[in-house]
């Protein structure tokens, strides 16, 4: 699921790759300026591809393999701790 819509993707690939193939171009909006961001390094270094996975924000989507039933959300700004308790 991406932002509530079902998405069929090939197994065994990084989530970031699957999301880009599905046409997602804005993975997150930055905490400081709200600028749109998408994957850059695809190797776990740049922290640009952060998304919320199964309710947990700030996950590096390039470092996570897709799984059946994953619920992914585009992330807006910094993590809200109050909301995820």
């Amino acid at each position: 699921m991406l932002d509530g819509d079902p998405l069929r993707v090939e197994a065994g690939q990084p989530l970031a790759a699957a999301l880009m193939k599905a046409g997602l171009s804005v993975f997150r909006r930055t905490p400081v300026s709200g600028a749109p961001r998408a994957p850059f390094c695809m190797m776990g270094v740049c922290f640009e591809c952060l998304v919320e996975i199964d309710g947990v924000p700030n996950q590096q989507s390039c470092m996570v393999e897709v799984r059946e039933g994953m619920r992914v959300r585009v992330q807006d700004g910094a993590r809200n701790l109050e909301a995820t308790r």
Partner: protein
Amino acid sequence: MQTSVDTLVVGGGVVGTSIAYGLARAGERVVLLDEGDDAYRAARGNFGLVWVQGKGLGNPDYARWTRRAATAWDRFAGLLMEDTGVDVELRQIGGMTMALDEDELVRKAADLGALRASLGGDYPFEILDGSAVRRLIPQAGPEVLGAVFCPEDGHVSPLRLLRALLEGFRRNGGALAAGSRVRHIEPSGGGFLAHLVGGGTHAAARIVLAAGLGNRELAPMVGLSAPVVPNRGQILVSERLRPFLSHPTLYVRQTGEGVVQIGDSKEDVGFDDTTSIDQLSRIADRAVRCFPLLSQVNVVRSWGALRVMTPDGFPIYQASTAFPGAFVVTCHSGITLAPVHAHALTSWMRGGPEPDEIRPFKAERFNA
């Protein structure tokens, strides 16, 4: 051979850049000699507190100097903004030291009471109980029994500060010589020649040593002494979070951009600036006890950095009598003291009166 300038500042950390910025603002021609990126850069690894509480136990002069700096910070941040457009993210609405056990709190209260008495009653702090702490910071956990609160405490972004100081220095005509490690200082014709590793020489009428741990070797070349040793601190840095922590605390603060920085350790491990699992886990554990909501937060980075410590922990500010025009400056609290380093201290270096508060801070006190 370079043309001679008014002053050479050795050391591009927060102490050196504060002084260089102040001198350049006063109209001097200044060259700032900064070592390479392999240097031990305390200015790039510190915590960023503007901190009064607890500073100067047994040394009222240091408490006075610290407060003079802390109360000047707001104006100083404004000046940097005016000069450079850089917001150093100063937040100064009071800071806390959390206490997790009763004895600790009683001891701190007694210490600060004694400090207040030694300053004729003029020293602002309050002891808060656990519920008062939670009224100010609702996220503080049930294990927090109380805190010391000082209204003059605050924090800045240390990296933005360093950038602002350098930028301000440049805009006031200062020249940065990066990658310049001073090998030897030669007093010459009433001035000084700084010979660099790998060749090259800079000349000036005056020289200010603000080279952190490097001062130990450089100071004796101009008739001064700086018996400083490294002391390691370790820091954890979290993912970015929406603001939840309104006040900085001694070991946990949330930066202007949402990152939570967690410290600290004090370790005597020589020139080893790596991190260690035992210290980092102790640091994390204490932070989670103070703020239980941190238990679900991801840590994205950690680092170790070396403090620059004198035997008693207090600064050295000294002019050379053997070689007039040479100064040594070393301190542990370059962030807190930046405003007085840029102004009061540079006025003295340029021939003005020595600030009363720094008269006791000479290296001779270590020659017992």
